[in-house]
């Protein structure tokens, strides 16, 4: 109940802007501290008996890979918010998340490639996990293209929401691809039945890095949402001005704030 109240409370973009303005510096600070701790721990972690120092790529690679899926999950929830509840900030959240998710996916692919070269002897292999993450990356790019293809943000939001939900089918395929098609990429070793197979020396830095990266995403996401809201306000103000010039009559008597937040909300 409390959560829904908070969510409806945040539906007001002005209130959202005020709240995030207060939260963001703290979030960014905590993220920076955690990242520093995580990177230090990763650097101090022992070499692996088989992989040597290259095992440390894991501390960057795995959080990126987790987040590449997590961000699509966030966008799917936002898509439901757009289609089902018509939450005014849901489409802002979805639009802001797409480029960030694409970046995480790209980094997961690149770091995996760099790790694969010394371990598997190849930068790229058409194995199930790699291929499905590559498809995820393509879907992020397609989604961003769809966002940019429609003029009106709220209409773009609904089209993108449908595509996001259809694309969400890919996430479980990625998660279980290593179990279904047993190829090069190793199966899950951290979150699995019967506890983690990772040694404590590797598990702690990995967990710290995972939390740090998640906070990094939240920080970037909130900042991107703020930009998106402001961008839409600028757009609606420009349109109002264009209307004023075109018809040179009074368009709206409401304050800027009101008309701008109206245009952000229900279309």
């Amino acid at each position, binding site marked *: 109940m409390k959560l829904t109240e908070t969510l409806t409370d945040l539906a007001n973009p002005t209130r959202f802007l005020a709240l995030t303005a207060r939260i963001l510096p703290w979030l960014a600070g905590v993220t920076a501290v955690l990242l520093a701790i995580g990177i230090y721990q990763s650097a101090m972690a022992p070499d692996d008996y088989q992989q040597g120092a290259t095992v440390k790529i894991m501390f960057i690679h795995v959080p990126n890979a987790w987040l590449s899926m997590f961000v699509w999950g966030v966008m799917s929830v936002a898509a439901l918010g757009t289609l089902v509840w018509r939450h005014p900030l849901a489409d802002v959240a979805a639009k802001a998340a797409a480029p960030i998710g694409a970046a995480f996916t790209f980094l997961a692919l690149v770091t995996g490639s760099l790790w694969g070269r010394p371990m598997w002897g190849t930068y790229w292999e058409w194995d199930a996990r790699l291929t499905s993450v590559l498809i995820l990356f*393509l879907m992020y790019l*397609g989604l961003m293209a769809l966002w940019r293809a429609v003029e009106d943000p709220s*209409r773009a939001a609904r089209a993108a929401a*449908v*595509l996001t939900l259809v694309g969400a089918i890919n996430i479980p*395929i990625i998660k279980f691809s290593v179990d279904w098609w047993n190829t090069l990429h190793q199966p899950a070793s951290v979150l699995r039945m019967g506890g983690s197979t990772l040694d404590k020396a590797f598990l702690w830095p990995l967990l710290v890095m995972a939390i740090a990266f998640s906070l990094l995403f939240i920080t970037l996401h909130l900042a991107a949402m703020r930009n998106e809201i402001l961008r839409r306000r600028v757009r609606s103000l420009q349109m109002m001005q264009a209307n004023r010039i075109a018809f040179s009559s009074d368009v709206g008597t409401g304050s800027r704030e009101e008309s701008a937040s109206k245009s952000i909300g229900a279309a």
Partner: protein
Amino acid sequence: MSALAALIRRDIRIALRVGGGALIGVLFFLTVTVLMPFAVGPDLALLSRLGPAILWLGALLASLLTLDRLFTADHEDGSLDLIVMSRTPLELACAAKALAHWIAAGLPLIIATPVLGLLLNLDGTATLAVAATLLAGTPALTFTGMIGAALAVTLHRGGLLLAVLVLPLSIPVLIFGVAASQAAISGSLPFGTPFSILCALSLASLVIGPFAAAASLRHGLD
């Protein structure tokens, strides 16, 4: 029901007549298949190994090419608005349109497969396997592609974007289609498993496609 039947009949009739574009897909399929030997060389042994993959790719691209027409023609002459506003549920109307599209543009691809198989040096078993997998898999291509077509109909430059959006969704169909064909040809792996998954993908898209397409049409055609 009669409204849906009328819609299916109308769509098939339009597709088969001049400018309908149903048979353009077959022509494109033929052209792509003919291009392949130029690209990989006229080695018959190699072509028969690549045959199922080439045919599947050709069929995939051909069905993608014709998908663009699924809603755009109706959108241009205003009949799509009538379909959206009519008392028939939009999901059913979308399903009917996709079914008509599959009959008019998908079935000819399957009928053309044996002829194209000859060009690629496929024997009877292989040709039959590819045709069977296409018969089981192309409905999935049409019904997932319909989602992209519905998204793209409201955009001004939908055609290119449609390809970008739909192709990633069609990858599972391609994987299991080619896997089943190869299993039937080599005989080392069971044919039933990938074929069943292919049928399952088609059935799932039969359910998901109309709902997603109807949702994006409702929201897109303000």
